[in-house]
């Protein structure tokens, strides 16, 4: 079953304020509030919504929102 990126993005945006208005191609570094707090909120979202442990190192290597969502299982 293919990963539903649109649905996953909507859920992520609901928990991570820095991603409000972002799309799959948004470059994370261009978001004004993409900071250490946003990283914490993203780790928490992956953990509690998807039971996926994404490491800070993995997260920091992501360039776009699509890269982030690629860490979710299909």
């Amino acid at each position: 079953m293919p990963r539903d990126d649109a649905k996953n993005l909507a859920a992520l945006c609901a928990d991570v304020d820095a991603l409000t208005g972002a799309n799959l191609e948004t470059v994370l570094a261009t978001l004004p509030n993409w900071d250490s707090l946003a990283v914490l909120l993203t780790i928490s979202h992956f953990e509690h919504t998807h039971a996926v442990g994404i490491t800070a190192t993995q997260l920091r290597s992501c360039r776009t929102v699509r890269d982030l969502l690629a860490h979710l299982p299909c």
Partner: protein
Amino acid sequence: MHSSLSNIRISGLAVSTGSVVRDFRADGLAAGDDPAQLERVAKAIGLRERRVAAPGVTSLDLCEDAARRLLEEMAVDPTSIDALIFVTQTPDYLQPNNSSLLQARLGLCKSVAAFDITQGCSGWIYGLHQAALLCSHGAARVLVCAGDTLSHQTDPKDTATHPIFGDAGSATLVEKTGSESAMHFIFGTDGSGAQAIMVPTGGARQPVAAGAPGAYLQMDGAEVFNFALREVPPAVAGVLKLAGWTPSTTDRLALHQANRFVVSAVARKCGFPDAKCPMDLVEQFGNQSSASIPAALVHACGSTLQEQPLKIAACGYGVGLSWGAAAFTVGPVVVPPMLPFPRR
């Protein structure tokens, strides 16, 4: 490492905090930070106020105050104490250790065993375990003092780390008892992550030259959050299993009070509802490092503990990286109120 020890109890707990109140928003505005950003961080992480030690006040002073108040309230003769354990990452000196200095200050016997444990946020669990071990092998009374003044060790320009820390010292009296009360412990260490919380200079590896600026604590909050989510839930589950408890039969989960966001996320993964897990300590006092678990117990359930027993699961996690979990029943015990030091 797993360990279960019986015929031991905690008979008293006291905590003294720093006396200087710092306001997160006011400090941020004074430093020129964006008000909207301050509000965002305050709301998400749970930062409002913290109590820091006045200049010149150290963890030794804070723990001495907590110990004096505890022993006085319990009417315990200091010379009846067999061992003193001082847990800190902020000792007064590289040498001698804080426990020797505190032995003299409190007037403990020269026959006392006194030693320091250089652990941070997992340290109170380590101290409790060592006290329980000593009580299992001849000691009748062991005083565990755990405290840190990390607010003095963070860079004021480090806006991610500096606003988090408060300062406190705690005193916990552990006694041998004839009852069957047991304490269960699990410990773990992952030194491969040591750089996530580190003061890089000032030790033998990188000494600080005379006159050089002080060394500051550096922390990678995201790596530490990953670590806590990965290691704490299995450690808590492990001590609950050793005790034969479940989250529903456990009265409180006392986690190291890193901040409300981290505590809430970790408690949730441990299967505990927020109502059973103290998490508002940091909003009023800051992250108190090795003193945060006893402070959470005193702050959140001190009055209850004076009247009835509670089944407590506790877990400290932090610098090392190191973690320690414990499950024990405590109460009724003597719990003096948490007070600032010095008092006006």
